[in-house]
């Protein structure tokens, strides 16, 4: 098995004349927590859509979880997990129904779904809300559940698109505990966030500006290189 979960070379996506993603090259190692930062409109969402097999690149090449992002997009989707702030779980299904639904989509056997549901309910202490509609569960809980559902099929990598926006400061940190646990179990984490303290929790951080990756490295490397005291300052210096 390759030690790289993402390998991308000269990846570009154009919409007419506009290059939303402009020739980016990078890789992400297995088990890494990789922070994917950038201003609104910098091209993060477009890049993520290509990495998750939803959008075809205009040019360039890449592999995610060992599959080609141009030619093996369907196979690739079984090996990844995805959650976002905007959409994660079906509001009008109960917690258990959501798990069964996602488990089914990812091709888990009934027995596996039952086993993993039990484990998850135990780990998150959800025993009393198993049969509650997702709509009635507070946002902070919902996001923790969504993360666990997105990793139910034990993907090689999970993509998190602003998973903690609007979540209270304590729940935000509990969410990051789950991220660390997943990373220790070998699941690679690819995460976008507008909270700069969260960027500092990542093993490596990349920063997109106008379609290009302008900086990439560990927190210490970025702080030294840009002579900054924290990630907030690095972000302001690069994105302005």
């Amino acid at each position, binding site marked *: 098995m390759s030690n790289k979960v993402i390998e991308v070379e000269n990846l570009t996506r154009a919409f007419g004349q506009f290059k939303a993603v402009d020739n980016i090259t990078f890789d992400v190692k297995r088990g890494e927590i990789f922070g994917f930062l*950038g*201003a*609104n*409109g*910098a091209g993060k969402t477009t890049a993520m859509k290509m990495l998750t097999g939803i959008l075809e690149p205009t040019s360039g090449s890449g592999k995610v979880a060992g599959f080609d992002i141009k030619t093996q997009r369907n196979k690739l989707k079984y090996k990844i997990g995805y959650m976002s*702030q905007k959409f994660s779980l079906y509001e009008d299904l109960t917690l258990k129904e959501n798990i069964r639904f996602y488990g089914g989509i990812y091709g888990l056997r009934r027995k596996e779904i039952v086993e993993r549901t039990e484990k998850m309910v135990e780990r998150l202490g959800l025993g009393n809300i198993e049969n509650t509609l997702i709509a009635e569960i*507070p*946002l*902070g809980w919902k996001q923790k559940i969504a993360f666990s559902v997105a990793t139910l099929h034990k993907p090689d990598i999970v993509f998190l698109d*602003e998973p903690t*926006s*609007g*979540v*209270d*400061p*304590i*729940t935000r*940190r509990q969410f*990051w505990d789950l991220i*660390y646990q997943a990373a220790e179990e070998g699941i690679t984490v690819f995460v976008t966030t*507008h*909270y*700069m*303290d969260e960027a*500092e*929790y990542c093993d490596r951080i990349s920063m997109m500006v106008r379609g290009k990756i302008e900086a990439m490295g560990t*927190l210490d490397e970025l702080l030294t290189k840009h002579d900054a005291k*924290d*990630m*907030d300052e690095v*972000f*302001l210096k690069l*994105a*302005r």
Partner: protein
Amino acid sequence: MIKIENISKSYEVVKALDNISLNVERGKLFGLIGPDGAGKTTLFRILTTLLVPDNGTATLMGLDTVTDYKEIRKNIGYMPGKFSLYLDLSVQENLEFFAKVFKTSVESNFEMIRDIYVLLEPFKNRRARDLSGGMKQKLALCCALIHKPEILLLDEPTFGVDPVSRKEFWDNLKKLQKNDGITTIVSTPYMDEASLCDEVALIQNGKIMAVDTPQNISKGFHHTLFGLKSENNYKTLMFLREMDEVNSAFMFGNSIHLTLHNHKQFINVEQKLREKNFNFSMERIEPNIEDSFMELMEKE
């Protein structure tokens, strides 16, 4: 300027607001700080006369939100949490539409929006749907200001917005306060933005946990706070949480914020970390708003 007295509001079984009272003086920039579901939007909807409270009263400029709603609507600018401009109208058309609704023109109030509008001008013929998040938010602010309101009510204007656009937005709010003397209530889930307000209310589960200046809220922190940095913060954090001496331990960016049951025990903590060969540095630090917010949350 804004007076809220004993307001409660429930939706079926959920108590969105639980007996809230607040005062905002003329010309102040007031922050409502709290996570999603805290009740911030419900409070905005009551203040903008779109929702009637179950109990209590609210007045803006001396006008009651229930009986004087027509007069209030003429004098407030409201930016809802959800983007509510016309997506299929251009920047310019949206502005003109809102000016007309308030029986005024873009030209007659242009001074107030000039600083924000210059950033939008290159895109004035673009449809609102095709604007980036930061641009949408600037357009929404312009539209909320077009009729020169005395009070500005902004519901999470910087939600999901990147740090650069957030900073520009707050610079604009500060300018409006200084140049036009406008009174503003702004809500945000970002704790760092709290420090930019004159006064803030920390809100959680429909209740106000504290109201004060950001400086006093930080000072109100009850423990001695330590900042700890190590080679592997996550491992260190797990180890600290097992210690009897530790009251709370949370990650804050690249350091751990730590409080102890008795602050003199920091010597024991250092000793235990050294015994386990943790490579670390630890010092006393000043708490910030987020520290205070988390302490108040845990107390609730």
